[in-house]
Each structure stands twice: as structure tokens, then as C-alpha cells.
């Protein structure tokens, strides 16, 4: 497997954990990540497929160890640097 193919169907995992009354977000930062992504795609900074590609470019071990919105956050920071919106230093500095 050269890279992650983030369209489902990966085998060898236990059943997906079902959560009763699952909230849309499990932490406030997740909602911010969701909104940030919608805004950046809406403004044309990158498109949805570039975003999906950035998720799949995560090192496989990192992809597998990350939560849903952690993957989103990593993809967003990758694309912001690549598109010249922010530098790695600016993002590290908060």
C-alpha cells in the first residue's frame, strides 16, 4: 500500500464503535476545524478533492492513529502552507 485511499473498505479492523446520541462535535476545536474548512473551500483557497488528497498524503501510521477531525486539521495546515496562505512558522507561533 503506497498511500492511504480514504474512500472506505479497508479491512482488518474491529466493528465501528456505535455511540448513542452522538453529538456533532466532541470538542469545540472540532467545530472550528469544520467551519475553517468550509470557509477555505468556499473562498476557493483549495477544492474538496485537494483537501481529500491532503488527508491521504498523511503518513499511513499517522492517518491510522488520528481522529476524524485531527485528520482534517492536518490536511488544512498542509494546504495552507502549500498555497502560501501561512508559513509553518506562523502556524507554529499560533
Amino acid at each position, binding site marked *: *500500500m*503506497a*498511500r492511504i*485511499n*480514504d*474512500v*472506505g*473498505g*479497508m*479491512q482488518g479492523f474491529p466493528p465501528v464503535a456505535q455511540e448513542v446520541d452522538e453529538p456533532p462535535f466532541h470538542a469545540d476545536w472540532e467545530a472550528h476545524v469544520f467551519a475553517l474548512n468550509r470557509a477555505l473551500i468556499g473562498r476557493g483557497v483549495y*477544492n*474538496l*478533492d*485537494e483537501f*481529500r*488528497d491532503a488527508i*491521504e498524503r498523511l503518513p499511513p501510521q499517522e492517518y491510522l492513529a488520528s481522529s476524524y477531525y485531527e485528520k482534517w486539521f492536518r490536511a488544512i495546515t498542509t494546504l495552507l502552507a502549500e498555497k502560501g496562505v501561512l508559513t509553518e512558522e506562523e502556524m507554529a507561533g499560533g
Partner: protein
Amino acid sequence: MAERFGPGDRVQASRTDPPYHTRLPRYARGAIGTVMERQGRYPLPDRSARSLPAEPEPVYAVRFTARELFGAGDHTVTVDLWESYLRPAALEGNR
């Protein structure tokens, strides 16, 4: 561009593993299935994922047997696949 395939056509999914995003699931690569219906036209994600211009192209709902995909099972799996991912199954010599 006219649709190359229609309902009932047997098609084989591409076996290539591109180094960029694709909507062709890895588990369906090389598999032979049947076109169920045309799903309209959409830009090829494999191109827009690379910031390239992507003209809309036909997308098909393609049904595969679980046996074809996974080697076992009695159910079927239907996947929306872009025309670029498919070729006529009849032209496939070796699998």
C-alpha cells in the same frame, strides 16, 4: 462526450494505483461489475485533486458481487465510478 456505457454493460475497473486522490476504492481495482445506471456527469476528482482543470465526465453506478471484490459473501456492493476508471470487461484478456 457521449456515455461510453449503459445499464447492463459489464465493465472492469482500472488496476492502477495513482499517487493522488481517486474515488476508485482500492478494493474494487481490477474487479468486473455491471453498470446499473448512469449517474450524471461530474468533474474527475483525480484531476481536481491535483489542481488541474477537470471537465465533467459520465459517472456510473457499478454493482460488484462481494465474491468478486472480497472472495466471499453473498451480497453486492454498488460503487459510483467515473468513466475514466472503467473499460469494457470483454476486452480484458488476463486478470
